[in-house]
């Protein structure tokens, strides 16, 4: 017996964390642990993010010159199409839900895993299969329909690999549905004792609302792509007007999915930010229940605004008015959320670590993007700016400025929990600020170019727009560096980062009560919940007045 044992300091029974619990490749590829599946997804979407980024780098390079200098028109068209398809379905839709959501949902509700662990793994394999189709479409020569696959171009005229690309998106849709079903069941069935609906962290609500949309909307995407394939491959007349079909029908089906899908891409981001801001402001979130209702309202109304993508398609004036009205209505809950995040800073004890910087960046960029949405909801203005760079700027502000910033916020916030390692904070702050700057440099000029009349998806363009395109392309260079930096220092931290404690940010939330990284079944003892999610201080008070040293104290719980 050693001295330590004699002194009563008994060694704990060996209990490896989930990362060290089996280290063979096979143990990863057959895992049903939600945390490991989250890592599999993270690797996958990182790959696709840089693939989509490479495509758009060529696009931005080409746009330095108004008449092109690098690419043929066909190549250009294939590159922006590939970029859109990859970024939407293989990066942004799965980004937060399938990585952070997968990892955190069970931890946050005090469950050992998701409801259907094998379905979870299956959905990852579907994503891989779908990605293979899409990459095949690229290698075989590319697809040139844009991410929107509009008919009759996609079904009758395009000579590119529409079938493979559409099949890829069709399959990845099933991965979405499977994940959605899984998360809904998990939230309903596996909450720890005491974890009532209104004690759920807002991130869980966000993932729940997102899952509802995934399950209800994605089948329509599958149908619309199936119809394109049916017309293209089997020659069934569906969208061909010469044979009694209707090309506009496709747009209705497509946007019936794709408008809700934009909320699939942004609700999880709202969830992340709603966790980060209270933690770094040491405040309860302002208006918790309003935040919940706002998310559910967005998820619900989001199904009834698709026609705002079709104001110039020839749809009836009455339909346009109804869609315009509902688009203004859906902006209300979004505005509420912005006000509530801002109000949550009031009387806080705010510190500015990188997750907070990214989150504040999200709020700013989401606000800007949301306001530009009001322009697009106004029919006469939309008629002028639709299908121009104004729309490109609008959705990049929300999906890239907003959602991707929030993804980075979450990545940094939970990195110590996921990996057990601390990353270099000053590098992270620098990257966050650089990303904000680079983003605005890239996309702010596009609002101007769009309003002045530069159409989107233009390989060559009238010379008067060059100044905006040069600014945009230069900004894209800065943005690219800002995206590469975290890849560098986060990877570095895996090997050389300091050890993270259980709760390095002194955050509330069940995920911080277990070890970093957590054990395979998440908790050594079944957690019980007896309080709301953001009890950083007593009800009716503002942030604590403790000295900064105490506020900064790590691992206080």
């Amino acid at each position, binding site marked *: 017996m050693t001295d330590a044992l004699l002194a009563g300091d008994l060694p704990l029974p060996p209990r490896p964390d989930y990362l060290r619990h089996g280290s063979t490749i096979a143990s990863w590829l057959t895992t049903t642990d939600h945390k490991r599946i989250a890592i599999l997804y993270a690797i996958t979407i990182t790959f696709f993010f840089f693939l989509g980024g490479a495509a758009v780098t060529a696009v931005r390079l080409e746009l330095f010159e108004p008449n092109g200098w690098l690419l043929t028109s066909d190549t250009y068209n294939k590159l922006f199409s590939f970029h859109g398809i990859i970024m939407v379905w293989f990066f942004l839709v799965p980004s937060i839900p399938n990585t952070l959501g997968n990892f955190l949902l069970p931890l946050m509700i005090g469950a050992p895993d998701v409801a259907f662990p094998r379905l979870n793994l299956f959905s990852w394999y579907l994503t891989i299969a779908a990605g293979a189709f899409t990459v095949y479409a690229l290698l075989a020569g590319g697809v040139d329909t844009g991410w929107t696959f509009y008919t009759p171009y996609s079904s009758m005229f395009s000579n590119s690999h529409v079938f493979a690309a559409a099949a890829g998106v069709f399959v990845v849709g099933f991965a979405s549905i499977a994940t959605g079903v899984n998360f809904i069941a998990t939230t309903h069935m596996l909450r720890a004792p005491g974890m009532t609906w209104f004690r759920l962290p807002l991130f869980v609500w966000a993932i729940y609302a997102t899952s509802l949309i995934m399950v209800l909307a994605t089948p329509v995407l599958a149908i619309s792509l199936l119809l394109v394939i049916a017309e293209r491959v089997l020659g069934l007349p569906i969208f061909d007007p010469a044979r009694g079909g209707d090309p506009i029908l496709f747009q209705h089906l497509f946007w019936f999915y794709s408008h809700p899908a934009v909320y699939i891409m942004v609700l999880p981001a709202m969830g992340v930010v709603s966790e980060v801001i209270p933690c770094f402001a040491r405040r309860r979130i302002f208006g918790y229940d309003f935040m919940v209702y706002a998310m559910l309202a967005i998820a619900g109304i989001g199904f009834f605004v698709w026609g705002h993508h079709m104001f110039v398609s020839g749809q009836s004036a009455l339909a346009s008015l109804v869609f315009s009205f509902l688009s203004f209505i859906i902006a209300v809950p979004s505005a509420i959320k912005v006000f509530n995040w801002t109000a949550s800073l009031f009387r806080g004890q705010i510190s500015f670590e990188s997750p907070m910087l990214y989150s504040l960046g999200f709020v700013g960029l989401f606000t800007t993007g949301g306001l530009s949405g009001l322009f697009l909801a*106004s029919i006469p203005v939309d008629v002028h700016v639709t299908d121009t760079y104004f729309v490109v700027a609008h959705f990049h502000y929300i999906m890239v400025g907003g959602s991707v910033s929030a993804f980075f916020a979450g990545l940094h916030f939970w990195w110590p929990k996921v990996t057990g390692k601390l990353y270099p904070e000053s590098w992270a702050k620098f990257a966050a600020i650089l990303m904000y700057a680079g983003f605005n440099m890239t996309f702010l000029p596009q609002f101007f170019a769009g309003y002045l009349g530069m159409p989107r998806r233009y390989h060559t363009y009238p010379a008067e727009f060059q100044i905006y395109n040069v600014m945009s392309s230069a900004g894209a260079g800065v943005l690219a560096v800002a995206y590469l930096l975290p890849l560098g220092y986060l990877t570095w931290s895996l090997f050389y980062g300091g050890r993270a404690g259980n709760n390095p940010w002194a955050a509330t939330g069940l995920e911080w009560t277990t070890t970093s990284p957590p054990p395979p079944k998440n908790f050594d003892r079944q957690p019980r919940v007896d309080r709301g999610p953001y009890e950083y201080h007593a009800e009716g008070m503002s942030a604590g007045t403790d000295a900064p040293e105490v506020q900064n104290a790590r691992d206080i719980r």
Partner: protein
Amino acid sequence: MNSPFSLPEASTHAVTVDRIFYLLLVLSGATVVLVFGLILLFAVRYRRGSSAKRGPMPEFLRREFEIGWTLATLLSFVFLFWWAGSADLSSLAAPAGSLEIHVVAKQWMWKTQHPSGAREINALHVPLGQPVHLLMSSQDVIHSFFVPAFRVKQDVVPGRETDIWFQASKLGVFPLLCAEYCGTDHSVMRGKITVMRPEDYARWLVQQPEGDDLAHEGAKLFVSQGCSGCHAGSSNVHAPRLAGIYGRMVQLSDGRTVKADDGYIRDSILQPKRDVVAGYDAIMPSFKGLLDDGELQSLTAYIRSLAEEGSHD
């Protein structure tokens, strides 16, 4: 090269659009200042360890507060909707007496045709101060007719006719662009709109090579395609006379009544079984695939001209 910093307001509609745009800009600007201002203010004042007052939350930060700003946002958005929506409604229909110009889009060019029959490619000359009504269709995929200086845009769709109208208010040459992605050369599917004084326009028209005017061409097609075999007064097939039907209400055999406008005539030719006129048998063959869009437009113009003749006597 046009100015990279400003866009002319070259139609009456442009002024309306810009007015809404600038109001939105002011409101958004105010919101941005408010939100960013508050975030900055709180970030500085309530930075960790600052001596700003914390303690119990002030009374007024209650539910009422939240309900208040929800309602305020809702009301201002409803106001915006009402304003933009009514501007949209009031500019929907082309005024009577507009100059009618036919536009056919195809990969990757614009073909335009004036009422006199004069044709242009990737160009359109229009008179100043007179409403111009464009009747557009596509021969292949979806395109979109976009004139930034006029703030107008409309998709041009195969298999149906869409329209827009504008009234130019500035002389000059303005870019015409295709705004809906349509394949390889989408970005060079551009043209020029030239706005001229009405007298210059008249002079320009006269100088154009004599094109057959649409109705004339339609009259020839009406015979060569065999329509007259059934529809002419002398025919012994039981088919409706077409003189004067344009613009009238037509009673259909299934009980509906519809207005005989361009769309109806187009459908009657392409899908005759869909709207069968009351009192007739559905014996008219479909001409789908036999007539291209230009020919359909000519036939429609011919039938319309019959209506005008009809109203003379």
